[in-house]
């Protein structure tokens, strides 16, 4: 990702790079040597801070081990691609289990602190050396924390986007109930984006199904605001330009009021009380007569 690359180029001035690299190597050697102990300490702190409560102790320990190793590796190589991939995989695994953002950020920061403490312990006698080690350690550690947090959030956003997409796909079905007659049942609130999508689907549906009449049933829509109401009226007019008649059914009292308030031209809007009435009206327009005893006449009047 570009964010980590940007950070990488701005961390330290050129001449100090060499010494920073050697200090990081020293640091990594120290962390590898202390691995078991530090990991233990970290896992203990996680449990103590009541983080990752959705996971068992064993799972926490297993994850802690792999995070620890990836963490040290990122410190060593200075590249964050592997860590990024790991963070994404980790997020993919733990998001469905209800792990929150603060927990993920929390455990990474805990690890950073645990490692920093161990550095304090190791270098407490040589203050200048400690300073230099921390100079090397802190930017790298912060970058790791950012990488993991960003990876988690991105994964989360990806899931949310996918779900939104799925909901949107499901939300406006275009159903053909008879030759040249379409029904669009709309359920739930219509926001501007959904209104746009609705228009697109309706106009495209008219084209592909060669519809003459469309029944737009908004029984399941509790209310609409004026921009969306206007949009709806425009959709009806656009459908007319394609040679189709739109019948709107199931207007709630609130929606009726909104439409009257925006001053809709009732000559253009064909409205019927409920879906059944709408379908009957559509059949009438198409010249169908539905009768239980004989075949319906199919020749349009």
């Amino acid at each position, binding site marked *: 990702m570009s964010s980590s690359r940007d950070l990488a180029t701005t961390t330290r001035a050129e001449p100090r790079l060499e010494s920073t690299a050697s200090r990081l190597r020293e640091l990594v050697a120290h962390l590898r040597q202390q691995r078991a102990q530090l990991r233990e300490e970290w896992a203990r702190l996680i449990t103590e801070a009541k983080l990752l409560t959705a996971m068992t102790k064993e799972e926490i320990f297993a994850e802690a081990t792999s995070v620890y190793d990836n963490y040290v590796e990122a410190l060593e190589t200075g590249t964050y691609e592997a860590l990024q991939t790991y963070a994404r995989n980790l997020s993919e695994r733990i998001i469905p289990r209800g792990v929150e953002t603060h927990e993920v950020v929390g455990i990474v920061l805990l690890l950073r602190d645990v490692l920093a403490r161990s550095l304090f312990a190791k270098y407490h006698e040589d203050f200048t050396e400690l300073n230099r080690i921390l100079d090397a350690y802190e930017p790298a550690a912060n970058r790791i924390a950012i990488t993991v947090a960003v990876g988690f959030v991105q994964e989360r956003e990806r899931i949310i986007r996918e779900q939104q997409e799925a909901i949107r796909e499901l939300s406006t079905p275009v159903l053909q109930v008879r030759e040249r007659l379409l029904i669009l049942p709309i359920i739930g609130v219509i926001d501007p984006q959904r209104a746009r999508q609705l*228009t*697109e689907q309706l*106009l*495209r549906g*008219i*084209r592909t199904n*060669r519809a003459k009449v469309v029944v737009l049933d908004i029984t399941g829509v509790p209310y609409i605001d004026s921009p969306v109401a206007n949009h709806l009226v*425009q*959709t009806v*007019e*656009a*459908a*007319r*330009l*394609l*040679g*189709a008649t739109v019948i709107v059914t199931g207007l709630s009292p609130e929606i009726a009021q909104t439409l009257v308030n925006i001053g809709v031209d009732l000559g253009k809007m064909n409205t019927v009380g409920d879906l059944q009435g709408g379908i009957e009206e559509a059949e009438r327009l198409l010249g169908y007569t539905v009768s239980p005893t004989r075949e319906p006449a199919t020749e*349009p009047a």
Partner: protein
Amino acid sequence: MQVPILKQGPYLIATVQSALTDDDLKQLRDTLVDQISQVRARGVIVDVTALDVIDSFATRTLRDIAYMIRLRGAETVIVGIQPEVAFSMVKLGLTLEGVATTLDLEEGLKYLHRSAKGKVQEHERRTHR
């Protein structure tokens, strides 16, 4: 770019092939209104399937064509407006008030045929001729 006008039975069919300048539109209007009596056409179909944009001048000219042809005793139907075009027209308030529109040429012919049914006798006179 001139718009070819074909005679098909009692109807004139003008199929727009590409984007039209204002002058092209005016010429289309004048030709159609002129020809309608020459060939004794009962209806006119203007096919705009090929148009990606229909602006205010085009809308007004199409409406003028329909009104003028009605005054000359025939009917007009605009066919093949694309879904995106339809919606952007409506957004601009260009709704072709009082002008018949249908999905495509086939529907347009059906529409004219149906609306002509009222004049059955004339129709019969034509078919027996």
